[in-house]
Structure formats: C-alpha cells, structure tokens
C-alpha cells in the first residue's frame, strides 16, 4: 500500500457551494488534495440548511448534506465585500493549482475575482466555474438548484406514471451527476497544464453535463422524432420488471427478469409451473403485452413475504432482485458495510458524525476519509497562519476589518 495519497500535491481554492461543486472537490479531497473552502460569514451555504439533520435538529453544523460533501476540507470564512478579504483570496489563488466557483455568472466579476482578474495574479491559473445553465446565453443568470435543472433538461419527463403528473427524480438530481464531470475536468486540465504549461478557464454548465445521462433519449428524438414519456417502472426490453409490494406496509421489492430462463425460475419459486406454458406469458413480448396481469400475479406472491427474504430467494436462483432499501436498510446492508461505505468521524460540535466514504476503491492509493467537514470558520486561523504564512498582526488586522466575519 502506497503511503502517500494520490493527489497529495494538489491544492484547490474552492469558492463553490451547495451540492454539485462541493461533492466534486470532496472526491478530490478523499485522495489527498488540500481543499480550502471559502464560506461567507453572512450568507449561509444552502447545504447547511438542508436535511437530513443530526438528531433531526436543523442547525448549521448538523446537516448531513453539508457534512457529507465537505468532509476532509479546510474551512475559512471571508466576507468578500471587504477589500482585505479579497487580498486573502488573491493569496489563496497564488497558493492554489486550481480555483473553483459555483456562483451565479457575474458574482465573481462583482468582487473582481473573475478569471481575467485572477489571471493577472496568476497567469497559468486553472479556473473552473460551474452554474446551472452555463456562463453565457439568455438563461445564464437563471440561478437555482439541481431540481430545476433536472426539470428543464428533461429528467422529470422520464420519471412518472403515465396517468399522473411527472413525479420527477428525487431532489436536486443534476447535482448528483455533474460532480463527476467537474472532477474529471479539473484533473484533465491539470494534465494539460503539466504537459504544456498552460492554464485555462472551464465553463461547466450543470444542465449541459447532465444531458449526457439522457443521451439515448435525445438521440431518439433526433433520429426518430420519438419523445420518451412517463412509463412507470416499465422497461422496453424486459418483463416482468417492476417494484412489487411486500408483507410490510409501504415496503417494496424490485424484480427484473432479463430472459425467459429467469422468468421460468421465478414461476418455479412462486410454485406456479403452470405459468411457464401460459400463452399470456410465453415470450418477453407476450409478458410485455399482458403486463398488468403479470404484475398482479407476482404481487400476490410478494405480498406474502418479507422484502429481504424475496431478495435472497430470487438471488439464489440468479434473478435480479433487491429490497427497496431505505436508510435503515442501507446502513445494515452487508455489501455497503463490506465496501466501507459509511465512515464515522469525530466532529467539533456534534462529537461524532457519519459520512459516506469514497465511492471508488483504488487498490494502491486508497481514499482517506478521516476529517469531518469544517464548522463555520473552523480553520480560518490555520489557513491564514499555516497555509498562507500570515503573522499574528496581519491576522488581527483582518479580524478587526471584519474580513473574517
């Protein structure tokens, strides 16, 4: 095992907030990047106001969203409306390899912290700005969250029952897609700079990157003028395919038979060998056509049983099945535990917290998730003194000027 983290030499001055941006730099922090998160002392990061909360108490330090996406980072508060605070940002820019922001286009200009201004300080700067719709265009100033981007890019229209209004994916869906594209863009720009010496500016629209998760449907429109709609849990290729009720109230199991063999084994498990020869369900096409009857038959069987038991019995026969797991199920899930998905960390005010580990496993340079997300301004002094090398006098001047909030 390598003792040095993979990204040990990478330094990021991070002005991103809420979910998408912080979730991206969290991935890099897991592998050793030093990420200095700049927070406003007056305008609280929306992530801090998003549940679930520790002990169900909505407080600035108790949000799982904040704590999960900012673990391993250093936190400093800076009031960017104060000129001395801007000088601190400029020093962090000089220190950093990469600067990131996720404000509404124009905000960084208003603080004279846009790419052109920062390039004067650091000509080979790599800077990435991410926002909902991109830095230009008529909707550039459309500020908001990933649920809105998910609506405007088509995700809602592919999630729902045919006879109901769209249900939409849960929450700020595009915020869960774009962190990967942000992290990849940063790493690729670093590689380009290593070879050419050139920095650059990256404009990453959350909507534009997320559309790659809808590419087959968008191509179907371009090629065939077909518009995908709401089809519930129906699948174009496979049947049975769905989410079925179980013995417990509002507890469900997902089942998908990917071929005739799996269907025949399911019939055997349900003690209904007669269904194998039933003309209504003979081929996948037949089963698609008679889906309502098929789903009713399966539901009659699943409703008598526990969701985990169904998962195990079907998996023993090689049929894709999973309990629809809630958080309680997930924190006991043997596979997630085997992968070390949940990590307990000590925390300044909560005493301890639980965050998700890295979703990636690297064989030689594993992720290190060993420091909780910063409390508001937790590392301000450390960043000024140790990262930037300021003396006590300069730090008190900043505090007196209100630059630290």
């Amino acid at each position, binding site marked *: 095992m*390598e003792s040095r983290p*993979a990204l040990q030499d990478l330094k990021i001055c991070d002005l991103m907030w809420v979910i998408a941006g912080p979730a991206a730099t969290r991935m890099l922090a897991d*592998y050793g990047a030093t990420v200095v998160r700049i927070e406003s002392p007056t305008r609280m990061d929306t992530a801090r*106001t998003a549940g679930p909360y520790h002990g*169900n108490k*909505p407080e600035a330090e108790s949000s*799982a*969203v904040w704590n999960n996406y900012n673990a391993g980072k250093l936190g400093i508060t800076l009031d960017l409306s104060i000129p001395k605070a801007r000088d601190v940002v400029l020093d962090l820019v000089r220190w950093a390899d990469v600067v990131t922001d996720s404000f509404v286009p124009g905000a960084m200009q208003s603080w004279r912290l846009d790419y052109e201004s920062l390039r004067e300080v650091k000509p080979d700067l790599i800077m990435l700005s991410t926002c909902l719709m*991109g830095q230009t*265009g008529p909707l550039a100033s459309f500020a908001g969250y990933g649920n*809105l981007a998910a*609506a405007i890019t*088509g995700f*809602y*229209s*592919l*999630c729902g029952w045919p006879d109901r209004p*769209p*249900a*939409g994916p*849960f929450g*700020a*869906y595009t*915020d869960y897609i774009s962190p*990967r594209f942000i992290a*990849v863009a940063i790493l*690729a720009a670093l590689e*380009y700079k290593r070879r050419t010496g050139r920095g650059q500016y990256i404009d*990453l*629209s959350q909507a*534009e*990157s997320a559309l*790659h*998760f809808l590419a087959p449907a968008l191509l*179907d*429109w371009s090629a*065939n003028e077909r*518009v*995908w709609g709401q089809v519930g849990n129906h699948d*174009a290729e496979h049947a049975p395919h769905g*989410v079925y*009720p179980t013995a417990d109230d509002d507890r*469900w199991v*997902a089942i998908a038979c990917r071929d005739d063999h799996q269907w025949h084994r399911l019939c055997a498990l349900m003690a209904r060998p007669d269904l194998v020869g039933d003309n209504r369900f003979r081929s996948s096409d037949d089963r698609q056509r008679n889906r309502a009857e098929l789903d009713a038959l399966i539901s009659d069987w699943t409703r008598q049983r526990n969701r985990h038991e169904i998962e195990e019995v079907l998996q023993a026969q090689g049929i*894709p099945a*999973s309990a*629809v*797991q809630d*958080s*309680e199920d*997930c*924190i006991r899930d043997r*596979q997630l535990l*085997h992968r070390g998905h949940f990590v307990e960390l000590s925390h300044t005010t909560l005493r301890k*917290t*639980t965050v998700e580990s890295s*979703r*990636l496993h*690297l064989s030689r*340079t594993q992720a290190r998730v060993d420091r909780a997300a910063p409390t508001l301004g937790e590392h301000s002094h450390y960043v000024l003194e140790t990262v930037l090398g300021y003396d006590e006098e300069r730090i008190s001047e900043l505090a007196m000027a209100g630059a630290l909030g």
Partner: protein
Amino acid sequence: MLSPYRVLDLTNERGMLCGQILADLGADVLKVEPPGGSLARRVPPFFGDQPDPERSLFWWAYNRNKRSITLDLESDRGRELFHQLVSRADFLIESEDPGILARRALGYPDLSALNTGLIYVSITPFGQTGPKAHYAASDITLVASSGVLHQTGDEDRAPIRLSLPQSFLHASADAAVGALIALHERLRSRRGQHVDVSAQQSTSIATQSGILAAAIGSPGWQRLAGGIKLGPLEVRSVWKVRDGYVALTVLFGQGLGPFTARLMKYLFEEGACTVEMRDRDWIGYGELLLSGREPVASFEELNRVIAGFLATRSKHELLRASVERNLLIAPIATCDEVSASPQLAARDYWSEVEHPELRRTFRYPGPFARFSASAISYRRRPPLVGEHNHDIYVEDLHVPADELSQLQRERIV
C-alpha cells in the same frame, strides 16, 4: 488533454460512458469488441427502429470519439494480440461481472504483470468482492439497493425509477474520475492500479445524503412525487400550469426563504395574493410551522394560492419571471423541448455528427464542459464494428496484411 494516452475499452452496455469521457478529453480509446460486434449494439432504441448493430442509438450515445477493433479473446492468438495492445496501453476499462476476465487470465494481476503502469478500471454492480458481489443485477434492482428508489415516486404508489437506466451511468462517470486520479498518481510512482467501482455505491449519491439519515438519528425522506415530506408538511415540487408542468420549490429558512419572499411579491403584483401574505416573514415561517406555532392549514392555504396562480400561466412566462425575479421556477421539459431550447442554441451546444453511411447527421449532446485552451471536439462518430482493425493491427502492431485477412477468416478478428 489526454491525447498521449491509449485506453482499451472492453466494456459492455454497462460501462461505455467512462471511455467516452476519456475519449472526449482527447484519449485514444479503442473499443475492443468480439467478432460480430459488442452486445451493447443490440440495445434499443434503433435508428428507424431497425435492429442493427450499426443503428443502436444507445451504442451511439456512449461511443463517440472511439475507434473500434474486433478480437476474439477466447482464442490463443487473440489473447496474444491483446497482450501486445495491453503492453502499450495506459488504461483498460471493463464492466464484466467480477471474476469473468480473471478466468481468461485477463484480470488485473495478469495484465499488470505485462504492464506495471496499466490503470485497470472495473465497473460492476456491487464491486469486485463482498457478499453481494455476484448478485444478479439490473438497473432497477441497483437503484433499489442504493437507497434512491425508496425516496422517489408518488406516495400512494410503488416507488419509481427514471425510465432511462441511470445506475451504470453514475458508476461509469465515477470510474472516469478514478481513472484520472490514478493517472495523476502514476506520474509520481510510474505504477498503475486497479480502480474498482460499484454501481450501488455510485448511485447512492442521488439520495442527496438521505442514505445517512438512520446513522445520524434522522427519520430520512419519504417519497412524495417530485417533492419532500418535512414532518407534517408536504412540500410539492411539481405544479400544473396552463400548458404543462413546472418545478417550483416553496421552502423557508435562510437559504430558500428569500426565494419564497420574492415569489409572493410576484404573486401580489399580479393580483394573486394579499399584502399580508406577501409581507410574511418567509425566512422564519418554516420554523413556526415545524414547531406548531403556525397551523399546517396555513401552509396548505399558501399552496392553494400558489397553485391557483400558476394554473393561469404558461411555462414560458413563468421561466421568464423566474429569471427576471430570481425565483425557483423551471419548466418541466420533454426531450423535444430540450432540443429546441434557446439557451442551448445560444451556447451552440448541440453537435451535428455526420454518419456518412446513413447519409445524414444526428444531433448529439455537446461537450460536457467548455475548456478555453483545450476544447473538447467530436472527432469521430461512433465506430462501425471493427472499423479500425487495419489501422491498429497492421499499422500499429505490424501484423502483416495477409495475416490479418487470415485472422478475419478464422473469426479471431
């Protein structure tokens, strides 16, 4: 950006996005397909609804900028050629179930012995090891196992998935990050490593940390079509308007309260609410509701007022108001509407990619990011089966042309 690097992409329908991200960034990505073509080419939909390996739109969606060679990895000569490719490759990406490639002596230990710098990326349902590593899996069962399905859908019906499979896209995009982290590290150590990605874990990001609720003493999210339940409150996010639906979140507190205050000012100016309603403290309102000092009926009344107003407006005018007034309203668009978006047109987002053999162009989603110095370009349409066999075997590996013909006759290539 990644032009010096070669990627061998062995993925089936589960992992193709990973190689495409690297290809978009400039890497030389070779799709290594079995003779006759990858099974992923059989995934619908098809252009003209004609099932054909060169017409799968799913295949097209995730193989742009790659080259294709065919090779029978079951044969000795095929493996020998493959070893030559591996010895000069930087990355290998695969998405077979754990153990499948190891059985053919193509696992990470086998190939890293040939090339210690190789970065070997595996994308699987549950990861390489563990009690569920050999579980049968499908998109819907993975979304169920990740905690996401539980949170999604109408409360009075079964939980629901996004009908376009997402779990392996989450995993494949994560895998691309892992590949580049390993590359960054390799510059120092000169050694590759095995990047092991689990779709269950990758998909769990879409719980928005809801997966942690039970670990921190919180009840977690209950599904409510497009919205969330907060204690006694049902916070909707989908609203009927004159010509369809919009997404709008009406919430309170420091972060979201100011948006609600601006929304109510808009309603007031349009004659849709009272001055008292406009002037409420929308930041503090949520706490009053949750502590019971404000009755739930008051929140329901607020929802009725907003719903009544929205029903009289169009998606377009609500989006315009949202931009002008800094509100949280977005139209719920279908794919044809997305394709016609003035915003995406103004940014010249779409790429018209020519498929000369079909004598037409198709509109692909454009670059995932705009790089000022090293722009992503779409250099190649998705490759035909084995389109680059000659380039790779003859020109790169110096296999004599007549031997290549022989290999093709033997169906090794």
